[in-house]
């Protein structure tokens, strides 16, 4: 006869590799995390540009040519969209981590601050 203790046989389920595909909420989370991938490409471009800038004029011209290719523009546009999406999720989460003001106000403030930074950078770069 089995005693209550050794009659136990708990079943341990395991998470499958595709756990994040099984719920919309998890898919959106993975999309947020995946925004780093196109950003890596952008960072590569940035480093390549800096290297070319200090190397030689020829090198810089070939970098400029590289950047004008359709697929490079497409990937960089994707990186921009991805960062905007990441910013959207980040700005929404931030007021929950540091509740300093009403959430809507904080979200609006963060977008305004980003806009101000972009305008200042454009101004510094001489775009009028």
């Amino acid at each position: 006869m089995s005693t209550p203790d050794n009659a136990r046989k708990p079943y341990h389920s395991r998470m499958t590799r595709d756990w994040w595909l099984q719920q919309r909420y998890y898919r959106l989370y993975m999309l947020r995390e995946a925004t780093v991938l196109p950003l890596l490409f952008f960072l590569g471009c940035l480093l390549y540009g800096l290297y070319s800038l200090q190397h030689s004029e020829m090198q810089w011209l070939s970098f400029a040519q590289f950047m004008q290719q359709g697929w490079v523009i497409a990937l960089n546009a994707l990186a921009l969209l991805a960062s905007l999406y990441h910013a959207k999720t980040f700005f929404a989460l931030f007021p929950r981590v540091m509740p300093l003001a009403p959430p809507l106000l904080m979200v609006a403030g963060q977008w305004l601050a980003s806009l101000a930074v972009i305008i200042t950078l454009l101004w510094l770069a001489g775009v009028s």
Partner: protein
Amino acid sequence: MTEYQLRIQRYDPEQDDTPRLQRYTVSGDHTTSVLDALLSLQQQQDPTLALRWSCRMAICGSCGVMVNGIPKLGCKTFLRDYNGVIDIAPLAHFAVEKDLIVDMTPFLAHLSAIQPYLINDKDDKAPHKQTPAQLAKYQQFSNCINCGLCYAACPQFGLNPEFLGPAAITLAQRYNLDSRDNGKASRMSQLNGNNGAWGCTFVGSCSEVCPKQLDPAAAVNQAKVESAKDFIINLFKI
């Protein structure tokens, strides 16, 4: 009365090696909850079905199950909100003892690890005074009913059962923010590690499923801020 199709995950430790799915038909109306349906099944069709419940009013926290893959309180979830076959399974990320009953021991161990009580070295027997503003600081995080839905929703707990998890870290925050408590220093050692607040990647699903809207994800990430402060303060301590 409407007929509803349920597909319930069954597991009998004395007979099964892995869970199996069993289909049932129950009739209900717009007031029938998942728990009502399970209980009527148990009473009228299949007395072997094992499940936990008590209050039927979303306060005891014992009736958590996965409904179509999402952790829910059975008594607070209504059949009318579902179409087609409704899948019912025991809470994810816990070991299944029988049918819909899971072993909550890891969850309870995590809760007690963060010392969920007022720690105070003051020896006076006088009552502690607290202003409404001081109460408001932690009140939201004090409404936990220990149902464990957030653990079933948390992929980080699923991947690493040592992760303290949403409810425990929220409870730690609840006591750390309490003006009557002085135990923060001893709780921080739990919160600082990778199995503490930093094990969280802000998936946020814990807050989605929390039946009491505690926003555990916010609490966990506020704990990260506290942990970072704690780290910096300790740098300057000799």
